C-alpha cells in the first residue's frame, strides 16, 4: 500500500507541476522515455532471474498450480469484457489492455503510455493501483466468500510481493507458494500480454 501511494505521489507531483506550468510538460523527449522503459523492463527481468524464490516456487510444481494464473487471466478478460459492454465510450481493446495490467500498475501504465495512448495510460495506472488496494483491504472477505484461490487471483501480479502477506493471512500458509508462483508468472506475462493486445488492430 505504501509503495503504491508513493508512486501515485510521484505521478501527482508531476501532474501538478506541469499543470501549473512550474515545469514544462515536454521536459523529456519521448524517445528518451521509451529507452527508459526498455531499461526498466531489463531491470525487472534481472529481478525475476535473480529471485531464488522464483525457481523454488517452480520446483513445488504440479499441474493444478498452473491453473491459478490461467484463472486470473481468463477471469479478468471476462470481467472487463462485461464492463466494455456496460459502459459507453470504451473500446474492447482498451478494456483488455487495462485489465491485463493485473495490478502491475507501474509497468502496464508505462507501456500503454509509451506505445499507445497517454489517456489510456492514466486509466491503467489508476485501475491497477485500485486492484492492489482492493486486494489489500478485502482479501479476508474474498477468501471467505470465493475460496482460498480468490485473493491470489484478485491480487494479480502483486500476489508475489505487496499482497503476499495479506493473502497468506487470508488463505493460509499452504497457499503462499501458489501465490508466489502466480505473481511471478503474471509479472512476466504482463508486458507480453499488454503489448500483444496493443499490437492487435
Amino acid at each position, binding site marked *: 500500500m505504501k509503495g503504491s501511494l508513493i508512486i501515485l505521489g510521484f505521478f501527482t507531483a508531476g501532474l501538478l507541476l506541469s499543470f501549473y506550468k512550474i515545469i514544462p510538460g515536454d521536459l523529456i523527449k519521448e524517445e528518451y522515455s521509451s529507452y527508459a522503459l526498455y531499461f526498466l523492463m531489463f531491470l525487472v527481468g534481472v529481478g525475476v532471474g535473480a529471485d531464488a524464490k522464483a525457481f523454488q516456487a517452480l520446483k513445488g510444481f504440479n499441474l493444478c498450480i498452473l491453473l491459478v494464473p490461467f484463472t486470473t487471466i481468463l477471469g479478468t478478460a471476462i470481467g472487463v469484457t462485461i464492463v466494455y459492454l456496460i459502459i459507453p465510450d470504451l473500446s474492447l481493446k482498451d478494456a483488455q489492455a487495462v485489465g491485463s495490467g493485473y495490478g502491475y500498475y507501474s509497468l502496464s501504465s508505462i507501456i500503454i503510455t509509451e506505445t499507445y495512448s497517454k489517456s489510456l495510460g492514466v486509466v491503467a495506472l489508476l485501475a491497477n493501483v485500485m486492484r492492489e488496494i482492493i486486494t489489500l483491504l478485502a482479501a479476508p472477505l474474498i477468501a471467505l466468500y470465493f475460496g482460498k484461490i480468490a485473493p491470489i487471483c*484478485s491480487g494479480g501480479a502483486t500476489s508475489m510481493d505487496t499482497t503476499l502477506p495479506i493473502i497468506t493471512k487470508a488463505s493460509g500458509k499452504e497457499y503462499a507458494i501458489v501465490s508466489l508462483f502466480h505473481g511471478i508468472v503474471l509479472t512476466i506475462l504482463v508486458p507480453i500480454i499488454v503489448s500483444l493486445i496493443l499490437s492487435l488492430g
Partner: protein
Amino acid sequence: MITVVSIMVLGIIVGYFIRNRRLLVKINDKLIMWAIYLLLFILGLSIGANEVIMKNLPTLGLKALALTLGGVIGSISLAWLTYVRFFKSKE
C-alpha cells in the same frame, strides 16, 4: 512486442547469473524503484500539460474503477470454480 520479450528474457538470464551477488541484486531492486518513480513523474508531467486529459480526469477515474471492479469480480468468480473443482478436495 518482440523487443519487449527479448529484453525481458535477456534480463532474466543476466539475473540468473548474478543471483548470488546480493549487492548487485539489491542495487537492481533500488534501480527498478527509482526508474518507476522517474517514469511516472514524467508521465505526470506530460499529462498535466495535456488539457484534454486534464479535463477528462474524472471520467478516466470512473472508467478505471469500473474496469478494476470488472477484473476483480471476474477473476474471483472464476477462482471460486477453480478452487472448488481442483483445490478444495485436497485439503
